[in-house]
């Protein structure tokens, strides 16, 4: 069942003084995300992945096309209501936390915005449940400062933050690219668990192997345009677009050396 659908979404940035120059970051992008489905949005730097993510999160508005959520144009949904169901986690765990506050502030912000009426005990039990669902020990992470947490812990906490709401779609923008190889896989596995619980995920990455590991379907983006899309296994097994092939050839693999050009 289609949950989120992008229809010919375009984003043009005005750059330079008085916006005299135009930069098309995203151009006529269409794809959809189903309930409990992981869509990998893969592309190189500057290809417009984050811009799409931000538009889906309504942190930026499209200059053209529509984004539908549950069949409704998202601009028609109250922002507050929308955010209950769609949340995001970003690339850089270190800059996702305001370094001067305790890390759990990100959780309490949700309370202010969405659950002002819960009393402390109710709230705490909710928080603990969310933390446990991302396999964090509440006692270990609550009340700590961001620099006292590991990258993986931080990202988990951010996911827990999203889970405090009854979200249906999570936009994960490069959420593991800053993590160490060993921690990265744990977060990735966590996302896979969430998917199993019915959460739709828009998984944004430049790392083909990560996209491949997790996603059901893949969208390959290049300079703001979709060059290839399809079920992940198919895209990776038989890339139809030259660009996809080039990327795949360039990926360094263990146990298999690059073929010399």
């Amino acid at each position, binding site marked *: 069942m289609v949950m989120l659908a992008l229809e010919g979404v375009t984003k043009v940035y005005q750059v*330079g*003084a008085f916006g*005299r*120059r135009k930069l098309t970051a995203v151009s006529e992008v269409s794809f959809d995300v189903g309930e409990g489905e992981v869509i990998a949005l893969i592309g190189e730097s500057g290809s417009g992945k984050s811009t799409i993510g931000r538009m889906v999160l309504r942190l930026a508005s499209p200059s053209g096309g529509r984004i539908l959520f549950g069949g409704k144009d998202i601009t028609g949904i109250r922002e507050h209501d929308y955010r209950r169901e769609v949340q995001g986690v970003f690339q850089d765990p270190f800059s996702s936390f305001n370094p001067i506050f305790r890390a759990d502030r990100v959780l309490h912000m949700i309370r202010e915005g969405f659950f002002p009426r819960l009393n402390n005990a109710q709230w705490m039990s909710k928080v603990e449940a969310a933390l446990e669902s991302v396999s964090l020990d509440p006692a270990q992470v609550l009340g700590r400062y961001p620099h006292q947490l590991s990258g993986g812990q931080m990202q988990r906490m951010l996911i827990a933050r999203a889970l405090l709401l009854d979200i249906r779609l999570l936009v994960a923008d490069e959420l593991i690219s800053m993590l160490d190889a060993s921690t990265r896989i744990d977060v990735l596995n966590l996302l896979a668990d969430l998917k199993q619980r019915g959460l739709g995920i828009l998984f944004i990455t430049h790392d083909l192997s990560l996209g491949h590991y997790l996603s059901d379907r893949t969208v390959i983006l290049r300079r703001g345009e979709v060059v290839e899309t399809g079920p992940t296994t198919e895209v990776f097994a038989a890339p139809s677009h030259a660009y996809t092939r080039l990327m795949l050839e360039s990926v360094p693999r263990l146990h298999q050396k690059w073929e010399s050009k």
Partner: protein
Amino acid sequence: MHRYFGRKTLIYLLTFIVAVTLNWLIPRFMPGDPVLRMLTRTSVSNPEAIAPMREYYERVFGLDVPLWQQYVNYWVQLLKGNMGVSVWLFPTPVTEVITRAVPYTLALLIPAILLSWIAGNKVGALAARRKWLDNTVLPVGYVLTATPYMWLGILLAWSLGIVGGIFPVAGGYSFELRPEWSLAFVGNLFSHWFLPFLSLFLVAFGGWAIGMRNLIIYELEADYANYLETLGAPRSLIRRYAFRNALLPQLTGLALQLGVLVAGALVTEIVFAYPGLGYLILSAIQNQDFFLLQGTFLFVVIGVLLANFVIDVIYVIVDPRVRVGMQGAS
């Protein structure tokens, strides 16, 4: 490039318009009647004579037409280079009063600005290199920048002028001389110029030295410095680069500081009774000569704008980053 200068010009133009309007506006909504002031100040002894004179001079100063027309006239006249007639020094045109004073102010300001900038930067750069120099330059620099211009002026006038008797403490040149191109006269000009110059120079110098020292230290932490270091480049090369790069923010700093320096020059002139713009401004205030005050204000604004513009041009010449940014490349 065009866009960059277009934008800058727009800002300067806007500033100019704001300044002119402010200038025009303020005296018209403030207490005090300039004409009356002029008449009463010059002790016209007969009360009955005042009313007709007042009427007459209102016309002379163009104060008898509606406000909007005064505003338009003001611009028209201004663009013709006419800033009106001084009330205090009636009937001398304001421009004439100003042109007489300007050479003195420029003679103070330009060398003080340039020399302090150059010397401050050099010494600051040296200080960043040597611990002992740093330990002297830094405190001295802080004391100097923190010194109010007039106080340093007062101290210099008192110590080197009045007590020491080495330099004269007032005026542009001695009263027994007439301007001419002789060694004696130029020497005399110089000796009168020296102390006001020195006080301006010293205060500004402190600021630049500290600025440069701190900037160099930042620059030496920059990636490129680190890289050069890694490649075994000699300290002197790295310092040369750091110095060069630090000069750029210092140049911006110069543009930002212009207003302050001009202000410093004004008060210094007052301390040393140096016959420049500062002294004119003070007199214009004391004598409520709005026209002269407006004129000097505009003059200062135009001067600062022009200097800013020159700095912009220099900046573009020396900093490739601005140029490239302007072309919209990158």
